[in-house]
């Protein structure tokens, strides 16, 4: 075989292997979605949304408390993370060249890579230890801390996309920097920022590890944020590692609901981004 033919064959083989890599990654994705859909959808019924968990031995019941709990936890997280993250992002984009901004940007990226369970320990020390009680508040703080770096970076990136002419126009009309930012620049980027917040929510909605010892779990219905609170993810975990068939069924149903929430959030964000891009195109 000639040298050139061999090189051509090697090239072809490597190209095919790259295609195989794509298939190898999509295979588990398809398998996971298939199982979650087939096992989850068949286990999902009205009782799942409206009823409380039944004690061991009794079949049926649902995750009403966990669904409400997850919503409350996400709400708390957004309450902490959105203002802090957005204002931080605004500062970074306004003073993007200062050394302080570079340091913060780097810290946000690194913080983004800190394992969520470690953030959970921090929230435990911050909120649970002083009062010696697990609480939804602690869970919300943990999720909020995980959200902040994502909100910071998306806000900054989207503010940078705002055309410079808008800022110059505002400043030329005599607006102070504060007016220019809050009345002109932020509103122009707001749809994109809201989309980024949706993505951040989708990301923390699936978190389990930091909730295990912050919001803990609760077999009863509660909306009191100073009490332990059930969440979809922790409930799925509890059921998944239990030895009961009926609980496994419920775990799949919970997983189905989680995936449904997260996928619809991320698809909504994707569609919104596409629309924005189309609108901004000259």
């Amino acid at each position, binding site marked *: 075989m000639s040298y050139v033919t061999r090189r051509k064959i090697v090239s072809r083989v490597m190209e095919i292997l790259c295609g195989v890599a794509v298939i190898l990654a999509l295979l588990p994705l398809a398998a996971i979605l298939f199982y979650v859909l087939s096992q989850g959808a068949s286990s999902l019924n009205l009782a799942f949304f409206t009823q409380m968990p039944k004690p061991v031995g009794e079949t049926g019941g649902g995750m009403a408390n966990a669904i409400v709990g997850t919503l409350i936890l996400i709400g708390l997280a957004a309450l902490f993370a959105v203002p802090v993250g957005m204002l931080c992002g605004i500062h970074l984009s306004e003073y993007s060249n200062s050394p302080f901004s570079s340091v913060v940007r780097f810290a946000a990226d690194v*913080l983004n890579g800190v394992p969520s369970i470690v953030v959970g320990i921090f929230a435990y020390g911050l909120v649970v230890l002083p009062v010696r009680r697990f609480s939804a508040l602690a869970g919300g703080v943990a999720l909020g801390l995980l959200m902040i770096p994502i909100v910071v970076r998306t806000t900054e990136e989207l503010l940078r996309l705002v055309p410079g002419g808008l800022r110059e126009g505002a400043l030329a009309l005599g607006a102070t920097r504060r007016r220019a930012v809050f009345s002109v620049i932020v509103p122009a980027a707001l749809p994109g920022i809201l989309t980024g917040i949706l993505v951040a929510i989708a990301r923390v909605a*699936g978190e389990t*590890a930091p909730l295990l010892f912050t919001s803990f779990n609760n077999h009863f219905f509660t909306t009191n944020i100073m009490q332990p609170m059930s969440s979809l993810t922790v409930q799925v975990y509890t059921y998944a590692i239990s030895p009961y068939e009926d609980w496994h069924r419920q775990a799949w149903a919970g997983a189905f609901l*989680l995936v449904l929430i997260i996928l619809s959030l991320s698809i909504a964000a994707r569609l919104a981004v596409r629309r924005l891009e189309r609108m901004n195109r000259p």
Partner: protein
Amino acid sequence: MRRSSDDRWFRIGTGVFPALVLAIAAGIAYELTTDSMLSIRKFGLSFWTGKTWDPVSGVFGGYPFIWGTLYSSILALILSTPIALGIAIFISELSPRMLRTPLTYLTELLAAIPSIVYGLWGIFVLTPLIRKLEVLTPDWLKKVPLFSGPPVGVGMGTAAVILSIMVVPFTSSVAREILKNVPVAQREAAYALGATRWEAIKVAIGYGKTGMIGAIMLGLGRALGETMAVTMVIGNAPIVSLSLFKPQYTMAAVIANEFTEAADELYLHALIEIGLLLFIITIVVNVLSRLLIWTATRRFARVIVMPAAVEEPEEAVA
């Protein structure tokens, strides 16, 4: 004058929030250190090497967990790196244009699926599958340390497989970005010298090598800290072994499992010290990875400014 003072207050006022982000990072380090002091004082450096984890008699050594975390992450990287780079190459260099966006979206979907769902799937689908494979292992192969142990399904191998699936999207998306930013001139020069398609791709990879290593390390950072999915399939036994079949334990998993059970202060502090170690390791890996990716993209930025910068042929079509 009023205007400039308004601007100054705006700068300071919004500056509080970035300072808060720095404070959070510092706060995590501070909290983890002070709340693990009992354990740090009592065991010192022997905590890193101690193999006994006995809450009843109050002896804590973190070595089996450190081993489990490092071993599972490295195994996961061995599996995920070729696949992630393959995907990045396929999407940025080989795939037809219309497939690019859907493929990018689908691979990134892997990152959107929550860890707990991976774990659930791992317990009920992947573990039985791997158990079947383990039962089929011929006896001569079982003499190799890597494949020794009982065929129970839960264990290091299963954990590594599930971790590798979870890490792929992180590595591939950064690698894809890097490849996209390698100047077309690099590939064109290779083609002009008579390179085949693969050889031109190798040139592009070589050019973005720093960034590629950064991408792989970013994946490593994710694998080290991954908790739920691993906890659910690794078997949770503090065993130090090369075996893929044996159940083992990781740092994140022991925190997840035992944190609420830690009855006495020393136990809790020992667990938080594990968290501190995990924090330090992931910070080091993440800082290195970000620095590498950053250097790579900065280098590209400089090249693009140079007059020899090449037009993107794709843009011309659009």
